[in-house]
């Protein structure tokens, strides 16, 4: 009897408290007066210490719209944004990472931006291909590019090339030779056998691996490839066999970082900084300077420069993160205008989004402007408020001229890259793509270390991929 009483009490508590749990999915939009306040969830916005609040105030002054910014921890941004959406807490506008865009676009939680884009004067200066990268199959565009996605270029130790009397490689054979010499001919002249030719990251989202492997992959692609108007699986294309052979060869000779399978981008980068490796493909732009400076920290005579791709290889321009407006926005046109049109206004708005606030992030210097030290970290100059000034889309010239190296790397990239597209998968894609890529990574690594021959590996991949509905996935992509 006593037990039953306790049980009933418990049930009572549970029932009494359960209304708290009724999960709502968004709020009903009542007819509203003019909207003067919007909620945003951003990733790349300024840190608190760097003046986020001042930025928001300046934004309000410029647009007349108050913006409430939520900036979740960067490392967990995708998870937190996902949880936020899943619980029905949609902001008015948010930043969506490249890899998640398609999922959000298909979810029905975003507003189509086509009419706003057509009506927008500033958007006309943005290259159409950058905008259309976000166009879904139904013709709707659910995201607007924050900036030119950019891409990676190869960085190389110029001082090592000089020490070994080598020119900048332009063909595979030359590049291969450079890697060999970097590994075995003591390019830093310290008498130690402690250098390798090339390093790269592998512990990255599988779809991002192709950003960092262009010299070796060349025309092949690890992920899904848009070829001749159709989507194919790069791993089963003919070019992949040659690419895998190249990987195998480099691994066997030891001229590539043999532990790259566990490299994050930071691990790989530090090998360049510390002079353990001589070549790495990484993001063009501000990283050109960072590589050079960091390498100089270790060895004052180091020089890191960006170079053009070798014959048959080309860089890729990724689809960048997007601004998306959700169905919770009471006045999407206003949100679009306040954020996106301001960002592209080639005037005060664009300055705010890139350089930040005068007197806090940059200041007048004679006839021009210079960046001030970063408030949170005065040892370094401040580089961007929201979007990278070296990645502007509409041809606007930044107030502060970027470093030569930066401009050079961007130039090289622009001249030598092809625009990537977003694969728009269906239900099979969502169900199986995670496992497909996991399996692909495993097979790839086993081929590279020589455990499988190239042919055996590719056959094994095909077999496993068939079990993971690859054919259905491709059919959905090509619909």
């Amino acid at each position, binding site marked *: 009897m006593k037990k039953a009483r306790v049980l009933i009490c418990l049930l009572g508590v549970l029932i009494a408290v359960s209304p708290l749990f009724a999960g709502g999915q968004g709020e009903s939009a009542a007819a509203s007066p003019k909207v003067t306040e919007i909620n945003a969830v951003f990733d*790349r916005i300024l840190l608190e210490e760097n003046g986020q609040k001042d930025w928001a105030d300046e934004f309000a002054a410029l647009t007349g719209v108050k913006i409430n910014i939520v*900036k*979740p*921890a960067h490392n967990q941004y995708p998870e937190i944004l996902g949880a936020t959406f899943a619980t029905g807490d949609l902001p008015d506008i948010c930043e969506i990472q490249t890899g998640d865009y398609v999922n959000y676009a298909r979810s029905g939680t975003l507003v189509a931006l086509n009419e706003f884009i057509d009506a927008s004067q500033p958007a006309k200066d943005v290259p159409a291909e950058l905008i259309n990268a976000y166009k879904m199959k139904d013709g709707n565009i659910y995201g607007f590019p924050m900036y030119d996605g950019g891409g990676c270029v190869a960085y190389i130790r110029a001082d090592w090339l000089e020490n070994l009397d080598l020119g900048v490689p332009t063909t595979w054979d030359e590049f291969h030779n450079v890697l060999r010499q970097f590994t075995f001919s003591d390019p830093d002249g310290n008498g130690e056998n402690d250098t390798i030719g090339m390093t790269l990251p592998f512990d990255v989202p599988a779809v991002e691996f192709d950003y960092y492997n262009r010299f070796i992959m060349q025309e092949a692609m690890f992920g899904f490839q848009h070829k001749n108007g159709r989507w194919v699986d790069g791993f089963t294309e003919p070019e992949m066999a040659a690419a895998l052979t190249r990987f195998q060869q480099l691994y066997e000779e030891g001229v590539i970082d043999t532990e790259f399978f566990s490299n994050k981008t930071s691990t790989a980068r530090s090998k360049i900084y510390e002079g353990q490796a001589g070549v790495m493909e990484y993001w063009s732009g501000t990283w050109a300077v960072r590589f050079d400076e960091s390498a100089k920290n270790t060895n004052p005579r180091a020089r890191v420069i960006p170079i053009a791709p070798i014959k048959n290889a080309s860089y890729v321009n990724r689809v960048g993160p997007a601004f998306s407006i959700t169905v919770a926005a009471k006045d999407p046109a206003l949100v679009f205008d306040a954020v996106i049109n301001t960002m592209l206004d080639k005037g005060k708005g664009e300055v705010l989004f890139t350089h930040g606030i005068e007197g806090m992030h940059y200041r007048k210097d004679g006839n021009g402007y210079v960046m001030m030290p970063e408030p949170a970290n005065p040892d370094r100059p401040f580089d961007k408020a929201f979007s990278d000034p070296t990645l502007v889309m509409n041809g606007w010239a930044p107030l502060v001229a970027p470093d030569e190296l930066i401009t050079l790397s961007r130039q090289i990239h622009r001249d030598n890259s092809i625009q990537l597209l977003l694969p728009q998968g269906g239900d099979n894609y969502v169900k199986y793509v995670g496992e497909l890529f996991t399996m692909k990574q495993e097979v790839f690594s086993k081929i590279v270390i020589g455990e499988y021959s190239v042919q055996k590996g590719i056959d094994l991949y095909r077999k496993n991929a068939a079990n993971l509905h690859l054919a259905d996935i491709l059919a959905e992509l090509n619909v």
Partner: protein
Amino acid sequence: MGVELKLSKESVSRKLFVVANSTLMLAVVTVILVPVLKVAIDSFDQRASETVFRVIPREFTLDAYRVIASRAALYRPFLISLFTTVVGTTISMTITSFFAYGLAQRDLPGRTLLLYLALVTMVFRAGMIPLFLVVRKLGLMNTLWAVLLVHSMDAYYLLLLRNFFTTIPRSILDAAEIDGCSPLGTFVRVVLPLSRPGLAAIGLFYVVFYWNQFFDYIIYIQTRPQLHNFQVFLRSLVIETNTQGFEGFAFATQSLKNAAVVASILPVLILYPFVQKYFVKGINLGAIKG
């Protein structure tokens, strides 16, 4: 004569044992210590990234610690950690010990049910999103309460504490009752003091839990990063994700990263000696004899 011989034999084997034991302990300590030492030594080394392992830093510097002590972005999370650890542990110890004591009453009706209630929570986890929803509905988002309350009791520690409580002989409790002690009085004045080793252990566990908490901050405190604790900061220092090579703390040198790690271990290093005396053998069980 015979007795003396027996005693000396005993002490020889005993001595051997002591030597063997000490050597083994030293070996264990070395294995544990080498990686930790690397972190500690590298925190003083300007050029830490270059070395495999050095006993003496290549380029000694106190810069890293100076940076930590001087930058608000660095010492504020540390203070937050201290605050939440102290407050959180207090809350947890209170809730847990009271609940455990209730569970320890052998004749309490519904005791088994309540016990299983706690047990089930050890294996069944609803998942991130349902919990997130509840926290939201309770209005705890973006406050330290979320972090302090959401995981305030751990069923494992609860059971351990209950076990410690049940080992207290009935006779002592009865004696207290006869002396006119209320249940609360008995609990506070008799049971708790007798359970010091158990309480010390569980207390230490909670301290560690609160000190190391990290995910709860990130998911429940989104609009006020000034409330994040040291672990959150430490992680953003040591790892980063790959979205266009985002760089929140690009200035971090190896030595700073290591110094931050050392700072995160300090509280335990300092706290432990105080707690250790509760683990010393031979706690006064005088009450039993009487």
